[in-house]
């Protein structure tokens, strides 16, 4: 992410902390789609995904004053909250097989993004592309292991039980896959 964008987004969070609702509208326009897509991918239920969006932006509004810009990017701050809220919901109910069918439904229902802000559309499209390319550079095993852990909230022992592969293999894959992802996205030491 360009430094200017990072500073611009941190200024947006500073405005949230001062109770500026227009800043909230702008942050929403930029990230609601990504937050919603993640929650939908993890939960597969539209109402729950919407609740996650509501919770994440409310939490951002209430905790903006405590946001520590030294700790990283604004999108990362929101997306960590989004995954955490989605995981809470996922773990609060029995994991079911509805994700796969929900994804099919999703492909039919959510073909065209309608973010109102053209700048946000471009920005998010660029980041999606960068992440897709970074994921394509992983081995299929690394990628599927990361996706099981990230989207379905499985621990390494649960992944091992599900795939029948040794625990050590899963651990190594998570470490090497995540390390490659970090490097491909330029998030490593001195690369921000």
């Amino acid at each position: 992410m360009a430094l200017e964008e990072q500073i611009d987004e941190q200024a947006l969070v500073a405005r949230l902390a001062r109770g500026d609702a227009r800043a909230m509208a702008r942050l929403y326009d930029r990230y609601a789609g990504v937050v919603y897509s993640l929650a939908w991918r993890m939960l597969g239920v539209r109402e729950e995904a919407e609740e996650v969006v509501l919770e994440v932006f409310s939490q951002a509004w209430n905790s903006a004053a405590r946001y520590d810009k030294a700790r990283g990017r604004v999108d990362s701050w929101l997306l960590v909250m989004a995954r955490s809220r989605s995981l809470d919901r996922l773990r609060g109910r029995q994991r079911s097989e509805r994700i796969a069918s929900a994804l099919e439904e999703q492909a039919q229902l959510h073909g065209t993004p309608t973010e109102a802000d053209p700048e946000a559309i471009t920005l998010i499209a660029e980041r999606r592309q960068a992440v897709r390319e970074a994921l394509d550079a992983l081995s299929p095993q690394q990628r599927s292991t990361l996706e099981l852990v990230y989207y379905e909230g499985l621990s390494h022992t649960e992944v091992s039980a599900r795939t029948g592969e040794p625990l050590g293999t899963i651990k190594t894959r998570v470490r090497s896959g995540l390390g490659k992802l970090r490097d491909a996205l330029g998030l490593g030491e001195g690369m921000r």
Partner: protein
Amino acid sequence: MTCDDIQDLVALAALDALPGDERRDLDAHLNGCPACRDRLAELREAASMLAYGAPPATPDPALKARVLRRVRPAAAPRSLVAACMLLALGLLASLVLLAQSQRQLHEAEAKNATLTAVNAAQLGRLAVLQTPDLEVASLAGQSGAPGAQARLFWSPERHAWLISFFGLPPLQGRKTYQLWAITGKQKLSLGTLGKDPDGILMRAELPTSTGAPKAAAVSVEPAGGMPQPTGPIVLLGNL
């Protein structure tokens, strides 16, 4: 444990996938190792970027209004108090109309008959606000009119609605604000609101729809209104 020993755990912790006992081992190491703490922060950031890999999905447009309402609770009272205040306002307006019509009674018998009829209609519509099925919603200003707000009251039983709006940008030229009910894929016109920034309007009519309305919106349209919304949405809210 050395830094090398702990890297598998750092990666799993970045994904919140580390069970409690191993997390405690890791925390013990992290307490004394700033380098591994930095590595965890980097990997946590990298992990969060996986969200961009989820298939793109678009939230319901009305969700934005719900978020903004939640963070601005003072701007969106969905209360009985608001309903009562509007009822009182409406009654006051009706009383003024009644007084006017009585004065005009002395001036012209024919004119009076017309006004009385109008007045009776107004009072009949005010009764909408006393129906037990009265529902209330707040509409929030959108990007073209961030300072605008509206309350919408409607009675499914009486097929009537009342809207109180304020803070809309005044319209120039041959344009009007228009109110819409959104039911799934359908957008049904509830009528035009004129071009003023503030107002209270009531209609004893609701179009027949195939499903219950989920949201209401106000858009800018050419004078006279349009069968479907064509202009920018200035107010939006869930029903």
